[in-house]
Each structure stands twice: as C-alpha cells, then as structure tokens.
C-alpha cells in the first residue's frame, strides 16, 4: 500500500510517501490512521488529532470508514486551502 502525505502532515511524518504493509485487521481509513500513528513519534504527532485530517483513497476523498486494501494509494492531508 502506498501512503502519501501533504502539507503539515508530510512535515510531521518527515516523508512525502512510504510503502507500508499494514496487518490484515487494518480495513479502513480510521484503522490505517491508528496503525500509522504507532510507526514513529513523527507519525504519532501527525495523526494525533484525526479531526484535523482528511484522507483520499485512490485519489478520491474518503471518510474514516472508507475501506483500504493492499495496492491502494492512500493520502493524508489537512483540509484544503486552494483558490
């Protein structure tokens, strides 16, 4: 599974992307957040407040209960501020 990070999520994690193999019990975005948060202090800081995070699965905005599976591209970022 490819995970991408943007804006301050990228800065706190300390990487723009990584390949991860979460355990099979990680089935949705919320589960992936909980698992990723255990990977390093930077991850823990980035994922400390899930209300400040937004996600996309395969380049579509995705809610916390959206399923994730091996081979997916999952991105985490703050609420968008373009325009």
């Amino acid at each position: 599974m490819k995970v991408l990070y943007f804006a301050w999520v990228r800065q706190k994690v300390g990487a723009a992307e990584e390949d991860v193999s979460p355990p099979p019990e990680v089935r949705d975005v919320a589960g992936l957040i909980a698992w990723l948060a255990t990977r390093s202090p930077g991850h823990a800081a980035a994922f400390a407040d899930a209300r400040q995070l937004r996600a996309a699965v395969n380049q579509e905005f995705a809610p916390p209960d959206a399923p994730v599976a091996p081979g997916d591209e999952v991105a985490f970022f703050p609420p968008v501020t373009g325009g």
Partner: protein
Amino acid sequence: MPVVPRVLVQEAPFDMGAETAALFAGRADVGGLASFLGICRGDGGLVAMTLEHYPGMTERALRRIAEEACARWPLTGCTVIHRHGRLVPGDPIVLVLTASAHRVAALDSCAFLIDWLKTKAPFWKSEEFAGGTTRWVEAKAEDDEAAARWGR
C-alpha cells in the same frame, strides 16, 4: 452536450487575455463571459506563499468540478487554471473563466467554480513572512458555507 472544460494545473504564469479571447474569438454564440482572477495578497508582512498540490488527484478534482459547472449551466466555454509553487504578492494564483449566451449562466457558474474549488480541490497554502517564519493556512468555515450554498 455540455462543453469540455479546459483545466490546467501548472507552476508557470498564465495569460488571462489570451485565455479570455480563446473563449469567444471568431464565434457568434457567446453573449457574455465572467472571470475570476485570484491574486496572492501581501497581508501582515507576507512575502511569499507556496502552494502544494497532489499531482494527479488535483487535476482530477478540478476537472470534475468544471464538468459539474458545464452540466449545471448552459456554457459555451469554461477554463480553470490553478498555479502551484512559490508565489509572491501580486502574482495571479487562479483563473476561472465561464462563457455563455447569457450573463446569469456565466456569472453564477463562475461563482460556483471558485466556491467549490476552494473546498474540493487538493491544494494547501504555506505562508512565508519577513524574517523567515512560515505558517500553513487553515481552512475557513465561511469557505465551506460558500460552497454549501450550491448544494452537492
């Protein structure tokens, strides 16, 4: 058949005059054209702004928003260009152009496009101030409210 919008995400500047002319030059079915040009503002000692985006998803999201506008209003043309990278006060950031036979479709669809792209296109702004401090811009509740007035 809705028109196919022109959607670009790029670091380079764009030519608003040429983009505008391209939507009505040589044709007799365009009665009006609305435009929105978003410009980098230099509030509070801001010296630059860096726009980060999600290559691939950003283009898809903008295209979907533009296609929604073309489906909702009878447009003869629609252009959305959004820049990324480092911009300084006075630099254009985003251009939205909508053309139609009549003014209401052009004006309303232009407002819709800028409201929706602010809340539905993956861009993030980092502000840079004199002295070197930087800060991520936070999403505003009024932007969500502006987007919500167009339904979903």
